[in-house]
């Protein structure tokens, strides 16, 4: 889900109403494959690469990337999951519960960490993720892979691998799921 969704600023009883499908399931699959190839290419091999998926939207994408990389390059890439609830800069302003405990069971020191998320929006989640990552060792390089970049950055954060660039209005919402990517709105009941 998009960053805005993760921040849970919904009025009570609001519902996501999709208006247009911008990527089909097949489109998502192709984009994933392409990004996997890009990761391998940019890093000239995968010995130091690890994938860290952000809860919850980035986890399955990270797993997909790992699977594709294993198929294509024959490499087994370590995958971790990261929950940034405790690192957000808006704690106390909106309710954010951790979705699941962070699971990074390997030392990140000297690695190239590819952070993976479904939607990149204001950049605040990624900034929190960078802070959190620091607890697990000093990565050599951190890269960012997202399925959708929807614009409206509030911090100087940019992705390295993008599935689709999708211009959006601020009040719109982006939903990423196994069925594809849709653009829609929050409607209050």
């Amino acid at each position: 889900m998009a960053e805005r969704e993760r921040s849970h600023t919904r009025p009570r009883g609001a519902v996501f109403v999709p208006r247009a499908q911008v990527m089909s399931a097949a489109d998502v699959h192709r984009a994933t494959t392409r990004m996997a190839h890009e990761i391998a290419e940019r890093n000239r091999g995968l010995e130091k690469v690890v994938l860290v998926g952000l809860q919850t939207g980035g986890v399955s994408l990270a797993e997909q990337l790992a699977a594709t990389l294993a198929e294509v390059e024959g490499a087994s890439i370590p995958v971790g999951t990261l929950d940034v609830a405790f690192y957000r800069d808006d704690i106390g302003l909106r309710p954010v519960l951790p979705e699941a405990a962070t699971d990074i069971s390997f030392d990140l020191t000297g690695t190239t960490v590819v952070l993976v998320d479904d939607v990149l929006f204001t950049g605040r989640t990624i900034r929190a993720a960078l802070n959190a990552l620091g607890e697990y060792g000093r990565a050599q390089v951190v890269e960012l892979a997202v399925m959708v970049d929807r614009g409206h950055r509030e911090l100087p954060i940019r992705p390295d691998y993008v599935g689709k660039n999708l211009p959006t209005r601020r009040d719109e919402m982006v939903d990423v799921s196994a069925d594809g990517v849709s653009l829609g709105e929050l409607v209050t009941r």
Partner: protein
Amino acid sequence: MSPFPAHLLSMDDLSPDDIGQVLAVADSFAEVGRRANPKVPTLRGRTVATLFFEDSTRTRLSFETAAKRMSADVLSFAAGSSSLKKGESLRDTVETIEAIGIDAVIIRHASSGVPARVAQWVDHCSVVNAGDGWHQHPTQALLDLYTVRQALGGGDAGLTRFEGLQVLIVGDVRHSRVARSQVTAYAALGAEVTLVAPATLLPPSLEGWPVVAVSHRLDDVLEKADVVSLLRVQSERGSGAFVPTLREYTAGFGLTARRAAQLQPDAVILHPGPIVRGVEIASDVAELPASLITEQVSNGVAVRMAVLFLLLGQGPVEGVHRA
């Protein structure tokens, strides 16, 4: 989902959903605790104060560690310090708290109801009851639940296994705030609670208590127990006058090695500590794998971090539904 309560004064304040939330969030904080640097910036800029009118280094340290691991500023007022004279007006203490600008105050007091009174008077502060008289000790019950859930496999699956779980609460229920919190806590998750105590150590009335049974003979009910939760014999709270001798108490209600051998293979043993070896529990029984006493202590910090996070780390609560 309804908002988490503003204060944690009693297990009665928490719905089963709230309890589930505390335990789930505690999992995340347990992971934090396993790191080399077990610290997150979650409560940076917030001030948490401990106000312990009754001494308890262990519980106070557990709360203070929890707050510090979330980068909160911690102020600590302990019994015996000149600022907490016995008989000093509670109201004055509360005004001081508000004036300093404390976000959460964790109170332990020998008199029931003190945290509730403080909560009635404060405007901007969350009150956590760390034990008031005989009344409640909610974070103890929560960490007990967390420990048992862990033994049941953890996660949501572990939570569902509380349904029908056979829990014995053994000892001085009459004078125990831990027992009162535990009864509510276990029953809220669907467990079946049996109180085991000499007749004089049960409360004068069990009206409204969600227990399924009461027994005066521990040996009769041991075999079916999944959880044996032992209480302290509290001489400082008057248990002594209610049973003729501690020896008689141990003979009837102590978890001796012989009794421990009668437990089911998967049964677990809990105790809020500090244990009095040879009274409530035999020394060697405390060391058995079934005894989760040390896990309770280590889980205490994560559970208390979860409580502070849920009290302080959230703004107005809203929910979203997918169309």
